[in-house]
């Protein structure tokens, strides 16, 4: 196998967290990391929560190769993120609260302290075909140049990080902020303190 034990352990932990905590269905989502001019990415059809070494596919970072036959459907999005940003690892997940808010808002503005500290504003983008890799591969990297995470409306998030664990924090952190915002909106009461307005996060 192309992957060493320590790297595989990171893949397995991150995959399991994403599945166990409900960020993905049994088969959705994909995770990847840079590896010396190559890209290590989850195999298409493999279950993120139960990864085996054979489920991590190596493919070229700079051009298409036969790895595309086995690698995740969204490999091209990952590849473009690496080519256009400082990402060392990328996670794509279907965060439920981020997706819900993306259906009604044009950005997710953080109102909780942790979210304000880490993200402030989580961009939402709309692409013509949200389920396919082509449009996302074109639009997502543009946003991730300046933000750690982006929500593709109706679909899910793409997050980058210095490592898979770092990217995982961005996925879970953004979801926490989205959940808090969602429940707060549901209460229908004015905020006692709106940090997002104080800091003008909409301009972030």
């Amino acid at each position, binding site marked *: *196998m192309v992957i060493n034990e320590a790297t595989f352990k990171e893949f397995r932990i991150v995959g399991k967290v994403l599945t166990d905590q409900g960020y993905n269905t049994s*088969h959705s989502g994909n995770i990847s990391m840079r590896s010396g001019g190559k890209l290590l990415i989850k*195999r*298409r*059809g*493999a279950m993120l929560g139960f990864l085996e070494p*054979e489920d991590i596919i190596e493919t070229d970072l700079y051009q*298409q*190769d*036969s790895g*595309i*036959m*086995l*690698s995740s*459907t969204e*490999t*091209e999005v990952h590849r473009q993120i690496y080519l256009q940003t400082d990402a060392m690892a990328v996670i794509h997940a279907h965060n439920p609260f981020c997706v819900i808010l993306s259906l009604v808002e044009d950005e997710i503005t953080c109102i909780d302290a942790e979210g304000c500290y880490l993200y402030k504003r989580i961009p939402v983008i709309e692409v013509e*075909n949200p*389920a*396919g*890799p*082509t449009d996302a591969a074109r639009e997502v990297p543009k946003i991730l140049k300046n933000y750690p995470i982006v929500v593709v409306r109706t679909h899910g998030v793409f997050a980058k990080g210095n490592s898979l664990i770092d990217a995982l924090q961005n996925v879970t952190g953004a979801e926490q902020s989205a959940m808090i915002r969602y429940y707060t909106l549901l209460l229908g009461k004015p905020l006692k303190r709106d940090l997002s307005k104080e800091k003008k996060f909409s301009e972030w």
Partner: protein
Amino acid sequence: MLGMNNSLLKIDLSKEEINIEELSDDLLENYLGGRGLGVKLLCDNLEKGVDPLSPANILIFSIGPLTGTIAPTSGRSALVTKSPLTNTILHSNSGGFWGVGLKRCGFDALYITGRLNQRGYIVIDGSSAEIKEAEELWGLSTEETLEKVRNIEGNCQILSIGPAGENLVRIAAIMNQAQRAFGRGGVGAVMGSKGLKAIVVKNGNKKFQQNLEQMKMLNQVASDKIKVFPVTSQGLPLFGTAVLIKVINAFGMLPVNNNQMAYIADTRVDEISGESLRERFLEKVEGCYGCPIRCGRLTNTGEMRGKGPEFESLWALGPQCGIFDLKTITHANYFCNRYGLDTISVGGTIACAMELQQRGLLEDSTIRFGNSDILCDIIRKIAYKEGIGEYLAEGALRFAERYQGIEYAMQVKGLELPAYDPRGAMGQALNFATSNRGACHLTGYLVGMELLGVPKLIDRFSLAKSDLLVLKQNQSAVEDSLVVCKFVGFALGLDYQVRFLKSITGQDYTIDKLVEIGERIYTLERLFNIREGFSRKDDTLPERFLKESLEEGPSKGYVVPLEKLLEDYYRIRRWDENGVPTDEVLQKLNLERLN
């Protein structure tokens, strides 16, 4: 039935009689078209024990309800006959545009029997047909035939045989526009045995009814899915089917030296990869009628120019013979196309000869693994039955029998194995053993699920595969009867095909009903083989796969526990312990045993 012509063009070459017969709605609704229609016609009309190379054998070309519509990959047509290589029933299909031409001429099937007194070719011109003299064409390569017939007939689609078919080589193919092939089972020899050089379709303008608005909507949704899926939108279009070389090798399943190994650990695999083919020789990407995938390759080595090689050809003429020189392999593939030979069987038979030489059973020391110098010359000898080519022309099984080394023939029921070592994927192994036409990878392509993860990934070494294989074999029979390409199945399931079919025919088809039709076709093929003397003993694999585990690579240590798999398979198919369909299943499928 809407979407079909309900019309059979029947030609008796011995009597030079041409008749048009009506095909009933009942027949088409129960067998769809393509492979199903061909199987039904063959089983109803071919007597037991007929020599496949005799005038009595029947050659049936057929199209399906989806042929020529806007459904993706609907340019294919099917062929059914009795194989001179295996003596089993043989179904094959080919892409391109010929099938669409036949349908537009107003026919669902072309049924050919007898033998011409003088060599000839058939011209289907609009709604009429005639037999023309072909003495001048005899002896020409498929490319020369294409050119000459085009000069005579103008704009047309042409099936033809090359010298291999004329010389009754049991591994000869029928070439489609000299590029694509009805490849397997020696169908070219059947055509040659009838004195038939070519079949031309032209000037068809018949319109067939379809619900165009609904079809457009379905086509849009289907096209979106094909575009999203990387295998159909990137892997195959960019690199052609040769993209699979590195993929299959990565699983330790790419056979080398006649399946003595199945893993290439060094850079030789890069030399023959789809990436390398694209970088070095690709001239143009080509596609069949109605195909958004476009996996076809027109290549140019600087010395020669032609079609391919496809994955299976590249492997058979390459690693299976211990050869890793891409240029030589590509040239060998061109020669197979010109002579009209099945590349898989050619490679498999030469590899068998090479192992016989390695084991001291064949004295010719030039026929050894890795000797690329002889490859193209051996192919010529096979096509013309010259020297040792006379024996190689009989296929691996007969060749190995001649040299007392039957265990070195990698074949099932006489058909040489394709490019997947069975020890690395247990479902595919069972498929090779049980396929009605011999070692065929396409009959129930479990590689899709076991390796490629389409539609979903399953454990490739698990033995709980029989149910799934039965379903896939039945589905595959449906796809071959509609007729659509296997590659579109990577992106679209039967849920899409059933909607296309309903839209075209107006009939209330369901997935269950289609799967039952697939089962009917598959079971009828089985009944044909049983009548011809096949039984459980033939549902097997070469001993190598049952007893010798691989020593290297990701499939190291595995053999195929076939008996266990086979027991489950028969039980699920409701066949008895000898592999004979029970009365219960025949009654359900409205079939009778063949006499």
